[in-house]
């Protein structure tokens, strides 16, 4: 059985202007959404606060729960449904942390039982103090930063087979980061700075494959983060884990395509780059779609059946895989072409 015939020849490269505009507008929308929402919406892992998961024996209304909460005098809180409708499960979000040790869940259980008239069970309580929230935020950002750093170093060595250059790269990057850390800049700025340094270095050292790969990577992560912002979803530790996995995984397809381009460049030296790239993308199309497809299937099953706790993680992975597959076809390879155009001028 075969979905995609070996002699397939879709003009991907020809459509690159359309693809670029689509990507660019997606990225702009993502950034706009982040600006409008004043940065990413942090979950309690990062912002601190209290999260309580309550299961009721029978259906209740959100207002009933809220009136029960107001009796407890907990400060600013929000209630949202959790998981399937038939579960009668709710997440209560309280901005304040540190209401602990007062036998809090027992009291809450009683208060909710009185206000709703239905038996309530507290199934999960997470209380994160502001200090831990800040710690975790720092750790998550550093994780993102180091993942990007190591991968940038790896691909600059791997794609170009210039490990000396990649060593130089690593040195310059580390130096830049060290310099910045002396001035005590915040981690997001550090990440942006490291990315800019990386891009400039790739440009200066003429590492076009690495450039394509890293641009595709930034593209994927930005759009995933943007979608989270647009849907007003919260950033939690599992979502960060998903983002890191996407950073690793989205390169997967890009590597496959790039390896083929290099192979074809040797094989058909006379053909123009545009044809070779399009041919390579077509030749690997079946693999690209199948590998992404199988991963998508399992992540989809996790998204549908995995339950509320893992839901956002699965969502981030879904978006990341789809966008990552798209970018390896429409973003990474055309950048090689753009690069060549630069060289001719």
């Amino acid at each position, binding site marked *: 059985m075969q979905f995609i015939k070996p002699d397939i020849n879709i003009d991907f490269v020809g459509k690159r202007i359309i693809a670029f505009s689509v990507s660019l507008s997606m990225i702009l929308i993502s950034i706009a959404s982040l600006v409008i929402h004043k940065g990413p919406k942090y979950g309690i892992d990062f912002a601190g606060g209290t999260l309580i998961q309550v299961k009721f024996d029978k259906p209740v209304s959100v207002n009933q729960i809220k009136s029960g909460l107001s009796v407890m005098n907990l400060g600013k809180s929000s209630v949202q449904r959790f998981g399937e409708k038939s579960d009668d499960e709710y997440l209560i979000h309280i901005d304040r942390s540190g209401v*602990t040790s007062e036998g809090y869940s*027992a009291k809450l259980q009683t208060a909710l039982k009185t206000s709703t008239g239905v038996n309530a069970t507290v199934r999960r309580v997470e209380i994160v103090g502001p200090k831990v929230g800040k710690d975790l935020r720092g750790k998550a950002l550093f994780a993102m930063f180091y993942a990007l750093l190591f991968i940038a170093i790896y691909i600059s060595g791997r794609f170009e087979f210039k490990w000396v250059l990649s060593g130089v790269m690593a040195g310059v990057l580390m130096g830049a980061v060290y310099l910045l850390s002396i001035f005590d800049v915040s981690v997001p700025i550090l990440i942006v700075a490291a990315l800019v340094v990386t891009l400039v270095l790739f440009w200066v050292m003429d590492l076009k494959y690495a450039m394509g790969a890293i641009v595709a990577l930034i593209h994927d992560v930005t759009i995933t983060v943007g979608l989270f912002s647009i849907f007003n979803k919260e950033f939690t530790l599992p979502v960060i884990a998903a983002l890191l*996995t996407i950073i690793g995984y989205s390169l997967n397809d890009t590597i*496959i395509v790039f390896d083929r381009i290099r192979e074809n460049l040797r094989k058909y030296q006379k053909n123009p780059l545009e044809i070779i790239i399009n041919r390579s993308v077509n030749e690997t199309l079946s693999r690209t779609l199948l590998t992404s497809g199988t*991963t998508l299937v399992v992540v989809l099953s996790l998204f549908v059946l995995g339950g509320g706790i893992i839901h956002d993680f699965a969502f981030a992975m879904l978006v990341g895989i789809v966008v990552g597959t798209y970018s390896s076809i429409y973003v990474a390879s055309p950048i090689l072409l753009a690069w060549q155009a630069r060289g001719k001028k």
Partner: protein
Amino acid sequence: MTNLSWRALGVFGVIVVAIIYVLPTIKPSFWPHKKINLGLDLQGGMHLTLEVDTEKAVEGTIERINQEMRSSIKEEHIRFISLNRVQGNQLVIKLKGQKNIDAFDKLLDKDFRNLRILSRNTEGDVLTLHMDLPVKETEQIEKLATDQALETIRNRIDQFGVSEPDIRLQGEKQILIQLPGIKDTKRAIALIGKTALLEFKLVDETHDLDAALKGNIPPGSEILYGVKEDPTTHRMYKTPYLLKKRTLLTGAHLTDARVQIDSQYNEPYVSIDFDKKGGRDFERITGENVKKRLAIVLDNKVYSAPVIQEKIAGGKARITGHFTTEEARDLAIALRAGALPAPVNILEERTVGPSLGTDSIRKGLMSMIVGGILVVLFMVVYYKGSGLIADFALMLNILLIAAGLAGFQATLTLPGIAGIILTIGMAVDTNVLIFERIREEMHIGKTPRAAVDAGYDRATLTVLDANVTTLIAALVLFQFGTGPIKGFAVTLSLGVIASLFTGLILTRIIFDYYLIKRKVKSLSI
């Protein structure tokens, strides 16, 4: 033996070892090795992050020096204007007259050499001296306080009875506590967080309590409260006490604390035994203060203040205070394990009920099975015979991850299950890459054997690359992640390594076996 047989034998060995590691998880009686650990999010339990308020330990030390200095000054008959602890960890003394100043300097050199002089000002014949502890000493006190707090909490939890608790230091002064399967979280937090500083102080009966309550607290005295809860209305009643600040005796000299039942009121109380020094001190204190009231203070709360009827010998005392049996039991545990050297603050608390854990396992396994079956079916339909080989590799892949979890004694969490699910998708990636390449090679007219050789050779580098980048992400995550996320990093890393093994080595052997040994001429792919 041929090269192929050796390779097959190696793979067989790996499979056998994997089975040995996984067996105990399936049937514990089969094999004495340990089972796969489940994380708190899967088995239910409580995760706590505490911070030891080490500054309080430093302040305590300064306060002790303050008291010592006071009594030394009195012994040497030095007259001073004031001696106070300011800003938490500084001592300020004011002395008048050259004679007093000289005598104090001598005392400072003799008995308080560890103090650092911050500033020395003389105005007229009045000397003001600021002192504190050197940084090195402060750091040592802080470190000691953290270590001691860790040890004390460990003792308390051991006595409380939690199976397989995990208590460890994180950073400089944070303590991480994992209590799997614990149900009464309120009680556990109360027990762990209790400072349990037991102090005996005299009631100040020479001054008026009412005047003190209005703000006129005599120097050297303080107001502390006794708290009582009405058992029927749950209302709290506070009773103020005017106590002498000086602590006569602390719980540091305890040897034992037990719950006993008062035969008269049928109420539990905690009886305490002092060690030799404590017993002697207690005998002396009670002997010197007959007919006075001695307050028993625990964590700055007055539990009782009985009148000393006579000198008490034998080193025994009792703490009463209308306890429930559980409260009395936990207090006894806390006293036995010793006081915390400094108070602890709860920074983070995560509790998962056991039913939610079971739910998570069920849902996680469900999505794993459904996703797995879909992928397995797809591979067979799309690649036929070769798909079967890939499916076999997939099963083995999961077995290897499980063996890795058991072998490294890693913890399986809900994100960890997600990691395994993700691996199922990625493991077939490897096979898809290779199979597609083989198809391409056959398409240009190569024989099955040549196509398989070329397919594996050419795809290997790509496969390695694709997995290395995921592995980089997983390792970074392992380094920075906490709790459940670490579980994800572990299964993802194990999955990547396992899929490299099954995809590049295992399936190759099976292909080679068919093509070389069985001389199969056509390839079902």
